[in-house]
């Protein structure tokens, strides 16, 4: 059956206990076991029958093995997305498109990652033709390409040396309110400035936290969602645009692609950026948050670094941002856990970090594939 694109919902979410999985282990954990655990939790969360799942989208795990493990023998649509963070938003977009055009009715989006126990370094391991000429200069790792952008940003707009500190502090403060978060010890501006450089000007506390873990979410029509266990979270709009060049470094900090995506989202939903109750921003490295705030009109261009303020962006402040602790403190789940947090905030399930009266959440990812969604609950519709 076909559905209007705005009549589609996330109905179930599941994720690993990231904190428990940060513990050292002798052997790499099985990403498929983790993925299956997250999907089991998502199924329990919505109460749908496993056999109703007729679409399976995977990232960092592959459908052949995963469907075997799960006993999903006959999905009508399967697709492996690459294991990069930009794909979490793409997975939801693809699920929405599949349901809208009737190719599938219940789509499971599943991510499983054993990066920590498998000793993934995200640098130094080669990267194909685009970076073949970079390694002879010692250039490697996504963080270094982001650091290139941020160094220029600082030169253009005069961002201070501690400009990113509020973002690291904010993530950590929220993580302290999230039982599943890995790093829960709050940090100060001094701690930030004392943390060592990785790719200067970026410091350890600007960096995502590589970990093991899995995330799953289940997507279906609003019509079907109404019959399930939890209040539906509507995908009010989603949009994307690539910005692909030879390097992860985007010479406009992904601004033009973000602007294009933002204008479509705000037009389709009639929701203005300042009306969004909670911001979930892909934060592989803290400067990405600044670029995103500007690209999506949450902060004026060139002023994102001074717009962020520790009191403004906390869960009970006026512009709550990355309420689960983000990639630097909760766990680096490549945007997937941000989706789960979006759903929990809209259901009022976020416990000590709950944004009061949360009716709209925006997920944003500024990367070589820019994606963003606006998610709403029934109160938003009634407004």
């Amino acid at each position, binding site marked *: 059956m076909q559905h209007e694109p705005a009549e589609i919902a996330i109905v179930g979410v599941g994720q690993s206990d990231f904190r428990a999985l940060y513990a050292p282990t002798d052997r790499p954990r099985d990403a498929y076991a983790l993925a299956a655990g997250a999907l089991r939790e998502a199924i329990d969360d919505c109460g749908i029958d496993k056999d109703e799942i007729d679409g399976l989208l995977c990232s960092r795990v592959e459908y052949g093995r995963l469907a075997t493990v799960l006993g999903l023998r006959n999905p009508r649509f399967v697709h492996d997305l690459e294991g990069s963070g930009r794909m979490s938003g793409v997975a939801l977009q693809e699920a929405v498109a599949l349901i809208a055009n009737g190719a599938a009715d219940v789509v499971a989006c599943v991510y499983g990652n054993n990066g920590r126990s498998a000793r993934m370094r995200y640098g130094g391991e080669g990267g194909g033709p*685009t970076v*073949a*000429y970079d390694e002879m200069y*010692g250039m490697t790792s996504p963080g270094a390409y982001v*650091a290139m952008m941020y160094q220029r940003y600082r*030169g253009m707009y005069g961002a201070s040396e501690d400009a990113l500190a509020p973002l690291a502090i904010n993530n950590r403060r929220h993580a302290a309110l999230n039982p599943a978060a890995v790093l829960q010890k709050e940090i100060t501006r001094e701690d930030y400035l004392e943390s060592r*450089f990785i*790719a200067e000007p970026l410091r350890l506390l600007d960096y995502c936290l590589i970990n093991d873990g899995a995330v799953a979410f289940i997507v279906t029509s609003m019509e079907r969602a109404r019959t399930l266990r939890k209040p539906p979270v509507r995908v009010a709009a989603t949009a994307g645009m690539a910005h692909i060049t030879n*390097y992860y*470094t985007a010479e406009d900090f992904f601004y033009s692609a973000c602007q294009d995506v933002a204008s479509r989202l705000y037009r389709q939903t009639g929701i203005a950026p300042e009306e969004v109750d909670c911001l979930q921003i892909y934060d592989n490295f803290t400067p990405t948050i600044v670029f995103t705030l500007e690209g999506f009109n949450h902060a004026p261009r060139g002023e994102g670094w001074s717009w962020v303020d520790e009191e403004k962006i906390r869960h009970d402040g006026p512009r709550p941002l990355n309420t689960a602790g983000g990639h630097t403190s909760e766990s680096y789940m490549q945007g997937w856990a941000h989706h789960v947090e979006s759903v929990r905030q809209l259901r009022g399930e976020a416990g000590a970090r709950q944004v009061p009266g949360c009716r709209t959440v925006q997920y944003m990812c500024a990367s070589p594939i820019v994606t963003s969604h606006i998610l709403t609950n029934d109160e938003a519709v009634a407004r």
Partner: protein
Amino acid sequence: MNAESYERLLPEITPENRPFWDGLAENELRLQCCDACGEYRFPDSEVCPRCLSGSFSWRAVSGKGRLWSWIRMHQKYFDAFDEVRPYLVAYIKLDEGPAVISTLGETPDDLAIDLPVRAVFEPGFSERTVLKFTVERPEPVA
């Protein structure tokens, strides 16, 4: 630097990229230039990213550009660079259009974005000449 581990980081010379490396050995920066529309590109590829023409020539370019940005890498990712940490990596925008990752032969204290730079050609400890850049200083007024 450890020569053996450094060698492993150099791109393999192939029939497709050999003109680039031959150019550096002759102290010239050569890039592919589209015969149909004149677009320069880097790294080498089979077709023009602007017009998709497969016809191209390798042309010497000015070697001039500007320092779009830079970082200092403190983290150890490569054995070859372990002992020179932190080291500078530069993102250079060439006047002809393409961007290249490189480094500066000598690093002034007062780096700033958009400083003019020009290519310098350094015989490494491998057989290869490696492309680096140096900050252009205005000629002293006589």
